[in-house]
């Protein structure tokens, strides 16, 4: 018997009466406070704005029991996310999150770790962790009365914005580099957005979108909605801790493009500790890049917080951001938690995809290969102790980037439909 009920669909023509669990937006650098709205940059120093939660109100309600009784999606952590409206019709939700935290004993053994877990975000609705940030950004955007959504994307974000916008019938503009992988291009196009291919790399796309956002008033999830959007990645950290039985792991390894995800995973752990939801030592948080786009790893190696932009050249297209907005903060997280930020060449990325698929049955896109290959190097180098309870964030689905492995894997036999032929080849 079907028992599901759908929330009423109410087109967001007007801004909701905002009932936010936020008190404002504050600049991370200079502390200037602004009202909750469509704003992401400090009007004073250009620093990033961050949401400021009404922590007293949240403390009064949040509990493990309340979270566990919530929906089987990332919205079980709604108290800890920027929620601008209590009207359920403003929530844009494809049931993202609460993805499996898989034990990975075979991969652990190959890497020489005693305990390894995979946060498997390949199974989100559009096949990457980007659904986490998009559900939060679009929900906030609708509460703010936004009708048209947009993004600058290395591929996965475009897929997710396209899917979510389609699900609410909202127009979308998705800007991507013109030469992305076919799966990434078609994975957006199929949902019917206005797909804009830009002759340039992601950093060109990003700069164009910053200017388009200024001009149009569209809700760019990673530009003028970025303050809300970025908070969605915290749910990776929340889920890891809940799925470990409300315990922290010792070490988390995440891929880095802009650096936002890594920064927010760390923030999640600190919030869980501050609300008394999890005790114990905070995890070390490390990041991985591809050598062909490694501005954050390069600064880490220099012992500097000054990220020098690069011109990306790597098969890890999803991570090919040469001028990462949160690179500075990712370096701060690695520094504060005792983590590291490394990089690996393209052949190791392919080997990482294969190793993960062959040992654990999880098929990741290139970003997952980057994570596994960096994890391997960090264990070999002793950066990650063999006894650390480690979690690798596998952030995107391998079917999106089949090009990466097309030269390396393929059929073992080609036979006619005849038993004799097959047995002959088998021997």
């Amino acid at each position, binding site marked *: 018997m079907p028992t599901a009920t759908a929330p009423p669909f109410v087109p967001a023509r007007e801004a909701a009466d905002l009932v936010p669990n936020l008190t404002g937006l504050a600049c991370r*650098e200079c502390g200037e406070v602004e009202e909750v709205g469509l704003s*992401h*940059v*400090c*009007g*004073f*120093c*250009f*620093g*990033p704005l961050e949401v400021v939660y009404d922590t007293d109100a949240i403390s009064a309600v949040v509990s493990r029991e309340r979270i566990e009784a919530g929906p089987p999606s990332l919205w079980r952590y709604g108290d800890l996310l920027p929620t601008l409206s209590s009207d359920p019709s403003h929530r844009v939700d494809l049931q993202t999150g609460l993805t499996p935290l898989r034990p990975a004993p075979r991969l652990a053994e190959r890497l020489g770790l005693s305990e390894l877990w995979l946060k498997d975000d390949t199974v989100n609705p559009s096949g990457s962790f*980007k659904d986490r*940030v998009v559900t939060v950004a679009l929900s906030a955007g609708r509460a703010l009365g936004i009708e048209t959504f947009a*993004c*600058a*994307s*290395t591929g*996965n*974000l475009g897929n997710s914005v396209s899917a979510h916008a389609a699900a609410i019938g909202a127009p979308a503009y998705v800007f991507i580099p013109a030469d992305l992988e076919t799966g990434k291009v078609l994975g957006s196009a199929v949902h019917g957005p206005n797909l804009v291919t830009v002759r340039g790399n*992601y*950093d*060109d796309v*990003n*700069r164009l*979108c*910053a*200017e388009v*956002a*200024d*001009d149009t008033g569209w809700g760019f*999830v*990673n*530009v003028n909605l*970025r303050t809300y*959007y*970025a908070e969605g990645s915290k749910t990776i950290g929340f889920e890891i801790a809940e799925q470990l039985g409300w315990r922290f792991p010792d070490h988390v390894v995440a891929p880095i*493009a*802009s650096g*936002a995800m890594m920064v927010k995973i760390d923030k999640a752990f600190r919030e869980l500790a501050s609300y008394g939801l999890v005790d114990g030592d905070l995890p070390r948080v490390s990041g991985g890049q591809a050598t062909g786009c490694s501005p954050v790893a390069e600064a880490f190696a220099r012992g500097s917080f000054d990220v*020098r*932009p690069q*011109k990306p050249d790597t098969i890890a297209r*999803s*991570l090919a*951001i040469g*001028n990462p*907005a*949160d690179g*500075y903060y990712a370096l701060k997280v690695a520094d504060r938690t005792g983590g590291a930020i490394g990089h690996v060449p393209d052949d190791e990325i392919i080997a990482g995809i294969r190793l993960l698929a062959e040992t654990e049955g999880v098929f990741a896109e290139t970003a997952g290969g980057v994570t596994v290959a960096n994890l391997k190097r960090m264990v070999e180098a002793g950066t990650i102790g063999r006894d650390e309870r480690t979690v690798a964030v596998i952030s995107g689905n391998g079917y999106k980037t089949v090009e990466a492995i097309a030269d390396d894997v393929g059929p073992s036999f080609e036979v006619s439909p005849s038993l004799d032929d097959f047995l002959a080849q088998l021997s």
Partner: protein
Amino acid sequence: MPTVRIPTPLRKLTDGESQVAVAGSDLRTVVGNLGDAHPGLRERILDDSGELRRFVNVFVRDEDIRFQDGLDTPVAEDDTVSIVPAVAGGA
């Protein structure tokens, strides 16, 4: 004269103008003249030591000046200079 594109957070200082024409044949001079014409702007773009602030990206001819000559990047008469907040994008 070169055109400078002004992002939203700075338009309060340019009477709401999104583009202003400013003389100068290198970026440092352009920013200096911009600051003279619109008091307060220079401080938003440069820090106390006269370097670009951490969260400001500047593009001349659509190319990040960190791939060019920084504040010494030459600017031609019909060039466009874009000032873009660094945290704009995500992925």
